């Protein structure tokens, strides 16, 4: 049987959440994995809650159903907490990564995380300081890499450099790489 890891992303339209799922898939592809990335398709509206998903595996992925029980959840916008059930279907050994300045214990209590591990990172502040814009999606990749242990920082940076190299100026790339690196270092776990 094919084993795979599933990730669910929560964000709002315009925050680059779908792009984050895509980048994560491309980075993992570059690291030799089989990947899927897909958004939950609905009307696309700036600011509206949305979800995106990843499946990552060492073997070819064949399933094309929705992700019902993700082991990892990444919350790009913490104002969604209380509005949408970010723990829906997440198993007891699951991991939740939230973009917030608050400590993991406080967030864990608020969402009723129970046995699930909670990680927090101030991805918005990091993006403002490294890129001059509130784009929390790339730093969230750093936090995801650290919390999940699925890809090392050096590998992730190489993949992002490769991916961005075709599309952006070195200044933009450097900002993004610094953001990923800082999020990787600054993410806090319980």
């Amino acid at each position: 049987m094919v084993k795979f890891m599933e990730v669910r992303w929560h964000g709002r339209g315009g925050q680059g959440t779908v792009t984050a799922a895509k980048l994560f898939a491309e980075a993992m592809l570059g690291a030799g994995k089989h990947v899927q990335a897909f958004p939950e398709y609905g009307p696309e509206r700036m600011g509206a809650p949305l979800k995106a998903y990843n499946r990552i595996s060492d073997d070819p992925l064949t399933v094309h159903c929705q992700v019902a029980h993700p082991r990892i959840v990444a919350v790009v916008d913490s104002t969604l907490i209380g509005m949408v059930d970010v723990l829906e279907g997440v198993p007891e050994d699951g991991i939740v990564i939230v973009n917030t300045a608050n400590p993991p214990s406080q967030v864990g209590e608020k969402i009723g995380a129970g046995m699930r591990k909670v990680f927090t990172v101030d991805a918005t502040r990091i993006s403002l300081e490294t890129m001059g814009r509130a784009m929390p999606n790339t730093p969230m990749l750093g936090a995801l890499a650290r919390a999940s242990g699925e890809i090392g920082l050096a590998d992730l940076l190489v993949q992002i450099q490769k991916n961005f190299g075709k599309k952006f100026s070195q200044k933009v790339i450097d900002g993004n790489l610094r953001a990923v690196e800082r999020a990787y270092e600054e993410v806090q776990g319980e």
Partner: protein
Amino acid sequence: MGQIVAFTGNTAIAEAMRQINPDVCAAYPITPSTEIMQQYSSFVADGLVDTELVAVESEHSALSACIGAAAAGGRVMTATSSQGLALMWEMLYIASGTRLPIVMTVVNRALSSPLNIHGDHSDSMGARDSGWIQLYSENAQEAYDNLIQAMRIGQDMRVRLPVMVCMDGFIISHSIERMELLADSQVKNFVKEYIPHYPLLDTDHPVTYGPIDLQDYYTEHKRQQVEAMREAKGVILEVAEEFRALSGREYAFFGEYQLRDAEVAIMVLGSAGGTAQAVVDELRADGVKAGLLKLRVFRPFPWEEINQSLGHLKALAVLDRADSFGAFGGPVFHEVRAALMESSHPPKVLGHIYGLGGRDLGLEDIRRVYRELERVARGGQVNQVVDYLTVRE
């Protein structure tokens, strides 16, 4: 090994089209196939292809322009979905009756009403009698591979028919997946130089397309279309063999998974095939003799081969992602069930309608079907031959 990429189904199709480099594309983009033409128009604008891209005012005009261009002698491709395919309806029959090997990607989407943009097979299943060859794709890789093979199948002088390459809207068209590309030169060599047959633009040898054809010869011309479909079966396998030699990837009329010694099996087409495959793996680990048939070619319908592949089962469930209102089950179900009548001991055949308007088909839904099949295989009563799989009632 070719380049490994993470592409959506739509990007995979646009990339295949760039490598094929057709003479003419006429299109009126519609969700969820829009990105194909959006990306392709960038290739045209950037001078990466030689294609004459014709932006028209409707899908009816899109296919009409494709027909004109194909009759003129061009290699022609387009893409559409749902209502777009519906609006092409009368022209579908003209393309096939005129024997023009147009290749069209159909990104499967539900038909209105009610309005729904998500994936099901109502659009292409409704076009199943229009004389087009139909290839269904499980994922982005298959959509890419099918499109390249479709060129060769349609243009073969034994066939000369238009081909639809179908993939599930959003589930495949908008999902990023790992896949492998062929090199530009490999695709170019594989699809070969296009040789027009009786082109309108050959003014030294003037011909007429679409003349009236009454009681005297209409039947013979329809009979020739049937013959072309029969011939297509051999051509599809020949092309698949050549493609395997090129890519290492195997294609046939359908994919068989754990079928040889299976007692119960599901038959399905499109993206649900791989999901069912994961359930077969689970069941096999538990000692259940479960199998799966993933249908790739629906037209021409490979009924003899299906018979051979499934005749030994005790119970089979055919999953249809489209209904045929008022009929005895979905379109794939009733053809498979009829075909299995030719078996000496046909299995019990159940039909399930699923996934309309993009409704998810989860692992548990598929497990439920196999549980029911096991019960029926052990001699249990069939409660309902045809049923909806995921519905509120």
